[in-house]
């Protein structure tokens, strides 16, 4: 008997899912958000199709408000993987200057939710890989690995296809699409352990360093560029911080930390007493907010 570890089994399952989609979908794409979950998903794709490069492009739904270090990582990974990188910015959000400081929830809605729908329609992608995990949030615990979206991208939690064994039904009518979550069964700890074991490159923001920050509305925000409007009396302070999740920099709360290596980050994570999503402003809007966003087409 060869005992496979939990990470080997998770890896095998994810690779199986990636290959099923490539075999059955006409035009797959990988949604690449540059964070650690995307890093793992991309690494799994490279393993699944080796020695060929993954036979689909990477798509980044950009909001123009990501950390600069994320844009650097994006360029590097596109080059290393040999995959085509598509970047989409919702032209209407751009024209109207939608930003997280002035527009609140509209920022996420226009840039991300609408931007994603527009990009999928523009390129005609019929299957999109996403790095969501079931342990992130309660409504995600019930989502299938292959998640169907109507022609106008809506998710119906009451009308999902049963998923049995390793059999995924990828058939769909014209105009319908599937979102596929190959790392559904990974937990945050699995992700970190795998990054550690496989030496997967991640954005340096996950490690502690001195960064200019301001404390605002219960979050520690990093002043990543000159667009950050300082309120009266606010002065950026150099703090040793790192990020547990990455998104738009004005929406991502940092934690004070001295963890500069991966084992130290994992150590902190395991000893910490708050969940990963707490650093995301987006989830606190209302109870069951993620479920509502998802029905509307948010990833």
């Amino acid at each position, binding site marked *: 008997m060869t005992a496979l570890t939990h990470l*080997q089994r998770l890896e095998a399952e994810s690779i*199986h899912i990636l290959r099923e989609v490539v*075999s059955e979908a006409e035009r797959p794409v990988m949604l690449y958000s540059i964070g650690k979950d995307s890093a793992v998903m991309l690494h799994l794709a490279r*393993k699944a199709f080796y020695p060929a490069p993954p036979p689909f492009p990477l798509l980044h739904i950009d909001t123009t408000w990501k950390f600069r270090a994320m844009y650097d990582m994006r360029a590097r990974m596109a080059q290393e993987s040999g995959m085509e990188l598509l970047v989409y910015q919702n032209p209407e959000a751009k024209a109207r200057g939608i930003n997280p400081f002035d527009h609140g929830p509209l920022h996420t809605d226009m840039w991300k939710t609408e931007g994603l729908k527009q990009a999928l329609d523009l390129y005609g992608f019929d299957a999109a890989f996403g790095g969501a995990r079931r342990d992130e949030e309660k409504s995600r615990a019930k989502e299938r690995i292959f998640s169907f979206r109507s022609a106008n991208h809506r998710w119906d939690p009451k009308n999902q296809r*049963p998923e*049995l064994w390793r059999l995924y039904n990828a058939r769909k009518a014209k105009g319908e699409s599937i979102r596929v979550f190959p790392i559904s069964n990974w937990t945050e700890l699995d992700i970190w352990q795998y990054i550690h074991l496989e030496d997967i490159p991640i954005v340096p923001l996950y490690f502690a360093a001195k960064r200019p920050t301001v404390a605002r509305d219960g979050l520690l925000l990093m002043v990543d560029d000159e667009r950050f409007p300082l309120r009266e009396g606010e002065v950026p302070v150099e703090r040793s911080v790192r990020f547990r999740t990455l998104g738009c920099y004005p929406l991502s709360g940092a934690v004070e930390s001295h963890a500069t290596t991966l084992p*130290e980050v994992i150590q902190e994570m*395991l000893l910490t*007493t708050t969940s990963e999503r707490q650093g995301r402003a987006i989830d606190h809007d209302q109870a069951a907010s993620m479920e509502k966003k998802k029905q509307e087409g948010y990833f």
Partner: protein
Amino acid sequence: MTNITRESSYKAQDLIAEDIDAYLEQHQHKSLLRFITCGSVDDGKSTLIGRLLYDSKMIFEDQLAALEADSKRVGTQGQDIDFALLVDGLAAEREQGITIDVAYRFFATDKRKFIVADTPGHEQYTRNMVTGASTADLAVILIDARKGVLTQTRRHSYLAKLIGIRSVVLAVNKMDLVEYSQARFDEIVADYRAFAKSIGIDEFLAIPLSGFKGDNVTTRSHHTPWYHGPVLLEHLESVELDLTAAQAAPFRLPVQWVNRPNLDFRGFAGLIATGRVRPGDAVRVLPSGKTSVVQRIVSFDGDLPEAVAGQSVTLTLADEVDCSRGDVLAVADNPPQVADQFEATLVWMADEAMLPGRSYWLKLATQQVSVQIQAPKYQINVNTLEHLAAKRLELNAIGVTTLSTDKPIVFEPYSANRDLGGFILIDKFTNATVAAGMLHFALRRSQNVHWQAVDITREAHAAQKQQQPRVLWFTGLSGAGKSTIANLVEKKLHALGKHTFLLDGDNVRHGLNKDLGFTEADRIENIRRVGEVAKLMTDAGLIVLTAFISPFRAERDMVRAMLPAGEFVEIFVDTALAEAERRDVKGLYKKARAGQLKNFTGIDSPYEPPPSPELRIDTASTTPEDAAEAIVATLLAS
């Protein structure tokens, strides 16, 4: 807060704090166990899972704070923490206090990572339990100690057995509410043992516990000194995994994808279902039967010396053999079988009932074929386990039936191999997954009846008649004018020297199909037979005209699929229902309206118009003569 022991997690916490590298090393070698919990709404299932998550420290402070607030607002445990709220997911369900779908939860100990499928216990959700159980190594069947073995306990146990779960835990919950009585526990276990034996569950582990109080869940309870077995978590950490058995079985790899980055490399990618493989092993490609030798096991991290069941791999072979998605690579001297007719158990999962004779897509491992299902031999009552007669299967029904695929598939009995014996059925129109199935065995006749090759081919028949065979399929409501137009078309073709034959609905029902009525199932069989006859006639080179209401899209498309591309010409004789009813040539509408005629198309049985027929005749604006001219002109032009 309730009184909770979190010793095991404290131990791990120490190691994390003192030596993170040692911790990471230890945790890289954990195995993975998937299990399901089955119980009804009140058995305390969500509470038990919530307890496992909580005691293994998968709950963070912010979640705990939200939980405490929620417990006070909507909880059912007074001022105590309601663990069930941790796992009840969607907003609508939370308000009803019911879990209505399959949800997956995760927790880990020092030894294992666990994936829990949380499945509801209501009868109407058989499909959810079967779904959750299909990937599980073990089932935890919850019983309320006050209530004992109930109908639903039997149902859950039967389904667990049906789906092939080898390890069963009988969790006798709420022991705190029966004063931790050993007598009560023993009574329940004896009851259950008698039932379990009758359905083939010979072994199970019974544990007295309380999810709410935490007895015997993660730590041994001092309330049950009479219990000497393992506590739940201990058992979950040590029970044998299905993968161990799978690795001992013969090698099978369903090919998912052929990797061809350049002309010099051809790799066969897939997840190894059973067994193990090394370079140099002799393998056979099924269904073709060609043999070769494994050359390399290619991976991103370099070639591997061996791969085992559960791993996703890419193999190269020494020879240029034909092998593509859907084929199975197997050990050469012990390959799986290939057949096209089977006996199987079906679990029906769609609102629309299973109809005998209708064709569906069948997906088994990486194979996808068209399949027809016979009427069920019997249906199983999941509560009493009685066999009942059934003509069709409704949502959540379980039945045994025979099915035939349009081409042979590689398979193994489900009891021997979940990957090569488990399948899903997909509706050809809605693309919904409508059933899960388990193959038992191949029917003998499929192995003994072979196609006889004939020397005078269909091409030869057609050439002699100097025409292209066609099936002109007229469809439309009763009284739409199908027979009238078909008759005119046949006369015109005959005059042109064409060899034709007209199959008329009423006439066929006097002979070939006189045993069939007008239920949905009989209508499907009616069309299937007509399709087969029309096909034989086109093999003989004829132009066949058929005039049948043929109300269902699926059956018209089934006939289309029987014929070579381009030979099926669907002609929709489009007449409004009001107009057809006004004409009422045969007086049938009047009878149907009076309730003397059941299942009449347009009245109490649906007509599904063709979305894209080759020809559409609007009888409101076209005379039968003009329609016939147009059809003949189209036919001659093609």
